[in-house]
């Protein structure tokens, strides 16, 4: 290595050392930056938890509805929460509902895996 290279390396080292002392952030500045990072993450986490809670609630409800006829058969009393008297075709509600829930779960899982 030539003398010229050595002096240049020393110069570069000094340049970076002096600059390193200047590169500090105030507490307020750091706090604002951390807030900017954490806000969307907390929102994302909160939203995911909320969606999952709603889905879990809906799934439980659908499961409960699906269990009702079974319970009716088992108890041999078709009058208990007698669905037959209600003019709604439950199959039309439950089947698309279940498909929608499964679809949402799949999309959420897909979203989670693409995040990672």
């Amino acid at each position, binding site marked *: 290595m030539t003398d010229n290279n050595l002096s240049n390396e020393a110069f570069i080292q*000094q*340049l970076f050392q002096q600059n390193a002392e200047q*590169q500090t952030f105030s507490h307020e500045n750091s706090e604002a930056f951390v807030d900017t990072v954490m806000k969307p*993450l907390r929102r994302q986490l909160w939203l995911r938890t909320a969606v999952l809670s709603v889905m879990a609630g809906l799934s439980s409800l659908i499961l409960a509805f699906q269990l009702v006829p079974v319970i009716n058969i088992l108890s041999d009393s078709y009058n208990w929460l007698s669905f037959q008297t209600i003019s709604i075709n439950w199959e039309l509600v439950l089947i698309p509902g279940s498909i929608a829930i499964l679809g949402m779960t799949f999309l959420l899982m897909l979203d989670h895996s693409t995040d990672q």
Partner: protein
Amino acid sequence: MKKPDDKELIARVIATQDTQAFEALVWRNQHLVRNWLRQLSGDIGMADDLAQETFIKAWSKLHTFRGEGNFRSWLMKIAYTNFLQAKRQQFQQYRVLQEASQMEADKDSSGEESAGLDLQKYLAVLNTEERACLILNYAYGYSHREISILTELPLGTVKSNIRRGTVRIRDKFNITGTP
């Protein structure tokens, strides 16, 4: 009470998505990532935006951190990749910025020496790879091998980037001795 180290905080984030643990990691490492990106881009606004993206990516990719290497190096690698992607996406805008920096550097080098040492003025004459290698080597004390891993450049390229970068600064600013 002893403060938890980085590995402990990472484990908490992976296990329970603990936002407080991640916030502590951001506090500890934000100055490093922001400085690294400021030195790379020469633009405070762009650097802070990229630093924010870096931490958001780190949050979602934290499970891929195996804990074998240094967490700081892992973050700096994400930041560097982010910077390269942003540079590619905004090539036109970035070129204008580079040209402006270049013009600033030319103006400063042709005039009288400023009282302080302005690092950005010198770094502006380097290309991205040279700049990254030089900063990692001199500002963060990384070895050539570590730089090679972080930047995904071959070891020989890292060495020649550092050599070429120092020579380019010397030639551009006509440095013949220590200041």
